[in-house]
């Protein structure tokens, strides 16, 4: 009887489109927002995964409420050269790597770090699309793919950092996670560009042994009240807190749009059932079981939900592509995973089925006598 359900929907096109619209909007919202949430989660995982678990980050104390991006992306006061030197001398530290970080263009970050210490920054394994690392005494910058796309530059061109022209000497391959969004320059050169007096926005510390992480952390915080020391675990939980907030927002918006869609489905399906009372009565009079009617209404819901959810998925892919390529200059920040896609379609179908149940039950209760009399 599936063909009859499809015929029924086709013969009431406007009503069908109106019903489908609610589900379409809900699923598009869920997939589009969910893709940003998923993309950020992936970004956090890939970034933190490439940095050693024993790494300690030291930076000037700041209030959590001022945070609005990944560590190092805020305009935090620099740690002085004296403090950098003092921290380097704390027992149990194998390596102390000062990093000068500044934001450019709203979403990009310039990091000045000693080229020999790039492994601490998690960029060691990244492939170059063009060019290569500069030497420590060289004046050049390596750009993430999205930064290069955004500034429309290639190796040999220059970009302006703190009003100074800096030559591009290398560009990473795309799909490098958060490294698509960075500009890396040798520490000495960053010091010169930003006149940082050999200070650091953050110091990355490698302990002699992982068991010493906590003691080093407490020692820094005890001796330097103006500094925060954060382990990789702390950074992870902070990022998880941020992505968690985004997940809740996505869930909230998705829930509200779903609720509106479900109410819309109930109203249009109910109207459809009332309008078709005579037809349903004829079906019952000519021998249809109650469950046959129920199944037909649910089949109609299934067709509408599958079609609108799949269309929503296609449109979401388009949206995500637009977010990544137009707004983010080629970043893969928004990401539709197979789990998100399948989950959203299943959610759309289940939501419609549940919302169709009430109108379907009304249809089952249709009195064939009243219906065939046209009352």
């Amino acid at each position: 009887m599936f063909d009859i359900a499809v015929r029924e929907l086709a013969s009431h096109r406007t009503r069908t489109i109106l019903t489908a619209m609610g589900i379409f909007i809900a699923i598009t919202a869920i997939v589009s927002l969910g893709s940003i949430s998923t993309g950020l989660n992936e970004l956090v995982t890939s970034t933190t995964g490439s940095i050693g678990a024993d790494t300690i980050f030291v930076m000037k104390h700041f209030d959590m409420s001022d945070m609005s991006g990944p560590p190092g992306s805020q305009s935090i006061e620099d740690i002085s050269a004296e403090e950098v030197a003092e921290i380097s001398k704390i027992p149990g530290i194998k390596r102390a790597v000062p990093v000068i970080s500044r934001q450019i263009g709203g979403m990009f970050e310039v990091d000045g770090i000693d080229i020999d210490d790039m492994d601490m920054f998690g960029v060691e394994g990244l492939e170059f699309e063009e060019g290569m690392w500069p030497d420590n005494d060289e004046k050049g910058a390596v750009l993430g793919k999205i930064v290069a796309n955004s500034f429309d530059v290639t190796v040999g061109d220059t970009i302006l950092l703190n009003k100074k022209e800096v030559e591009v000497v290398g560009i990473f391959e795309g799909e490098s996670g958060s490294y698509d969004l960075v500009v890396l320059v040798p520490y000495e050169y960053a010091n010169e560009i930003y006149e940082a007096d050999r200070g650091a926005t953050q110091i990355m510390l490698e302990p002699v042994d992982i068991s010493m992480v906590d003691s080093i952390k407490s020692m820094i915080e005890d001796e330097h009240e103006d500094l925060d020391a954060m382990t990789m675990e702390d950074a992870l939980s902070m990022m998880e807190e941020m992505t968690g907030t985004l997940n809740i927002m996505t869930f909230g918006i998705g829930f509200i749009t779903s609720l509106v869609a479900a109410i819309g489905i109930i109203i249009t399906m109910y109207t459809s059932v009332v309008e078709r009372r005579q037809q349903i009565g004829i079906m019952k009079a000519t021998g249809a079981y109650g469950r046959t009617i129920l199944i037909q209404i649910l089949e109609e819901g299934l067709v509408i939900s599958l079609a609108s959810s799949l269309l929503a998925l296609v449109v979401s892919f388009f949206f995500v592509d637009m977010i990544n390529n137009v707004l983010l200059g080629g970043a893969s920040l928004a990401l539709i995973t197979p789990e998100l896609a399948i989950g959203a379609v299943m959610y759309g179908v289940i939501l419609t089925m549940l919302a169709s149940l009430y109108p379907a039950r009304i249809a089952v209760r249709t009195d064939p006598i009243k219906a065939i009399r046209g009352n």
Partner: protein
Amino acid sequence: MKKENIFDLRDVSKVYCMKGVETHALRNVNLTIAKGEYAAIIGPSGSGKSTLMHIMGCLDTPTSGKLILEGEDVSEMEDDELAHVRRERIGFVFQTYNLIPGLTAIENVSLPMRFNGIGKGEAQKRAIELLNKVGLSERMHHKPSEMSGGEQQRVAIARSLVNDPDIIMADEPTGNLDSKTGIEIMDLIEELHKNTGKTVIIVTHDKKLSKRAPRQIEMLDGKPVR
């Protein structure tokens, strides 16, 4: 030899209660109809003839009394059991045709067979055969809105036959038709009765039409009076 009864109504009453007011549509009706009989139920508006047809057609159940259909008591059956009886044993023809507007003639005719779990192909094959029989070979793919009243009633007759029921019940089958088409439809129903031996019960208020049936059951105030 006495014919076996297909319908046996024993003290059947139907009372409707609307806003606390009771209306007696049928009052202790005792009636038998033999297998293969062609009978007309007649009577003025409000006499209970339609209610009688709805109860005999298993569209409704009596408030009291029993309806025995071929030896089986159907008066206390559940909705789905009644639906099964209607689908297997009774074919309906209504005054307003009651075809499904979005479906073609073939689809309308084959629908009761589809309810029986029969596949679309087989059901449509049978529908084509019946539409040919009622003279609609040229109108099979037309929707009701594209057909005349007479053609729609022919589709309804074909639909009533699709599951090969023993009983055909027609409620004012010519009520919406002009007299010429009405005669054609009655000829078709009678031919059906003659050729297949099916039990045919017609409900009408038209005395002239009722006289075409060998037996007339006249209803008055919820009771057969003749």
